[in-house]
């Protein structure tokens, strides 16, 4: 069974700081997805990465996929309070029927 480990579990920073969170898999990713979940809401897809070594940018967010497709990082530049939330990585399960999720990184950005 594939395990997705995310680190750190919690991160509390000031507005304007940069940060990186990580997602590591016990096996090769099929296609890695990053979601953000705000309190009281469901997760929302940020990006999907498929190719090893791929880098995708979404405004101040930079997603990197490891060459071996077993790890990924999400870097946020100049964090803002609106970035506060739970960041989750996910992959397709072995049966190809559903996503499995890591436990997430809870980010708090204060002004």
């Amino acid at each position, binding site marked *: 069974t594939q395990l997705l480990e995310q680190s750190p579990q919690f991160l509390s920073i000031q507005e304007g700081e940069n940060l990186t969170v990580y997602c590591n898999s016990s096996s090769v990713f099929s*296609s890695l*997805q990053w979601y953000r979940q705000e309190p*009281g*809401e*469901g*997760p*929302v*897809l940020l990006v*999907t990465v498929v190719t090893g070594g791929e880098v995708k940018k979404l405004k101040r967010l930079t997603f990197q996929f490891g060459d071996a497709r077993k790890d990924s990082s999400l870097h946020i530049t100049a964090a803002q309070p609106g970035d506060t939330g739970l960041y*989750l990585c996910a992959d*397709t*399960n072995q*049966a*190809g*029927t*559903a*996503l*499995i*999720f*890591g*436990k*997430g990184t809870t980010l708090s950005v204060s002004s």
Partner: protein
Amino acid sequence: GAGVSQSPSNKVTEKGKDVELRCDPISGHTALYWYRQSLGQGLEFLIYFQGNSAPDKSGLPSDRFSAERTGGSVSTLTIQRTQQEDSAVYLCASSLERGTNSPLHFGNGTRLTVT
């Protein structure tokens, strides 16, 4: 258009009672998923529907949990004889295509508290 709608948003029930949670997916989405989210456990997959059939129900934790989907649309998740460990947020998601090739769209969940 409207997103995934779940009801109720909050449910408090006594141990031993049955509860029904409802999910209205995005119109036209053929795939529907139920997940459970609790502190320290992350998002746990429960069941996947393609149309009205459930090809993967491997995540249902016990036979007290069941789900159905009718008309390829609305789904209900039923928990019988609720236990305190069933307390969690139950999230529903839908996607346009089968499997996970298209993005999952989540509802805001039902927060279930068993007292």
